[in-house]
């Protein structure tokens, strides 16, 4: 088991006063809190910071820790392998219920967040009976969904890992797979709660819940804007000039689109009701026109372009001349 240098983690001197420790914690917490930070190791870093603060803010725990530290942390490995002490964190929220083995070895078994000590105070306010029997950990995880799968209610498997406590109280991560009914019309970022599918509770308390966050998988052809579907439609210059009729793909079969004469690049054509499924009705389908030039121009084509240039008397940079 690795020795954790809590002073180093909070970047404070070993003789720092409690005010300095508090300030250092708050500063680092703002930087690495998983709800705020985009840092890829935010969750692990924050757990270390919270654990260090938990010990150093409490004079009793700090004294106990300092004594151990003075004796060179005997019995612990000294390498500073921060965050890789064999801990596995779930994708869960930072209900820091899983401090390191090092913490448990000094301050005893399963740590329970002292929410009562903060402003939550639920120990005095009706949840006291659940402190010994604590509801299991909630798990939050992303659920990737293909656009095609949002059109109708479908059943999808989701795999996630969650902490499992065996009869001896040892906690390990186990994998779990569930089939989840995804309702038609789900949108990006929407959350689905599956009651009782999170971590197991302590004592007789019920399990935590599983929260799935819908993530729409980027589509090779379509973009999404609310419940509207956007397709970029490449057009030859003469198609934009003369107009045309074409077949375009949608998520459910093809549709016919009429391109009017004199269309511009970037122009949007709306086809009502052909977008994504909503809880009620459908979004719209937008064809965004993109005029593209042929890759190579033959000598004959060049002559045609030249004739056009001579005849069109068109100045696309008129605005610059004022």
């Amino acid at each position, binding site marked *: 088991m690795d020795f954790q240098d809590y002073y180093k983690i909070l970047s404070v001197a070993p003789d720092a006063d409690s005010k300095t420790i508090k300030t250092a914690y708050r500063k680092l*917490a703002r930087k690495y*809190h998983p709800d705020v930070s985009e840092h890829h190791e935010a969750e692990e870093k924050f757990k270390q910071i919270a654990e260090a603060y938990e010990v150093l803010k409490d004079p009793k725990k700090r004294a106990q820790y300092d004594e151990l530290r003075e004796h060179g942390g005997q019995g612990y490995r000294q390498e500073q392998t921060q965050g890789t002490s064999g801990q596995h964190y779930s994708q869960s929220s930072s209900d820091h219920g899983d401090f390191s083995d090092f913490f448990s070895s000094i301050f005893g078994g399963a740590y329970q967040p002292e929410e009562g000590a903060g402003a*939550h105070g639920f120990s005095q306010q009706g949840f006291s009976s659940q402190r010994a029997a604590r509801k299991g950990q909630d798990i939050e995880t992303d659920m990737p969904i293909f656009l095609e799968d949002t059109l109708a209610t479908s059943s999808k498997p989701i795999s996630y890992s969650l902490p499992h406590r065996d009869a001896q109280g040892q906690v390990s991560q186990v994998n779990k797979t569930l089939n989840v*009914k995804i*309702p038609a019309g789900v949108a990006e970022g929407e*959350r*689905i709660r599956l009651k009782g599918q999170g971590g197991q509770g302590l004592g007789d308390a019920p399990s935590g819940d599983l929260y799935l966050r819908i993530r729409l998988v980027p589509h090779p052809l379509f973009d999404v804007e609310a419940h509207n579907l*956007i397709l*970029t439609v490449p057009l030859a210059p003469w198609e934009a000039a003369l107009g045309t009729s074409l077949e375009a793909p949608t998520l459910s079969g093809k549709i016919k689109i009429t391109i009017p004469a004199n269309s511009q690049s970037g122009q949007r054509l709306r086809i009502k009701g052909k977008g994504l499924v909503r809880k009620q009705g459908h979004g719209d389908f937008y064809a965004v026109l993109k005029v593209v030039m042929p890759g190579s121009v033959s000598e004959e084509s060049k002559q045609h372009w030249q004739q056009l240039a001579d005849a069109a008397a068109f100045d696309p940079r008129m605005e610059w001349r004022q």
Partner: protein
Amino acid sequence: MDLSAQYFSLEEICYATQNPSQTIIEIVNQGIVEPEGAGPETWLFNTQMISVTKRACRLHRDLEIDWSGIALAISLIEELDQLRDENQRLRKRLERFLDQ
């Protein structure tokens, strides 16, 4: 898997987020979440609001910020998330438009 009961009363959100009702009422009073219904007895929260409430409580506990500060932080975080998503979407569309 049954997805029924995706709306929650005050009592249910207290249990789901492990908070006393005073905390939830404070969160609603700050406008961090806006349940349907006229008062605490008839409030209905959705799953999204549970997630926001959980996030607000984590920030309140871990960053030691008061509730009005949390309200500001949450609205800024939400705005940032929205802008990031929008930026990503527009970038993707721009790429489609520029690349052959």
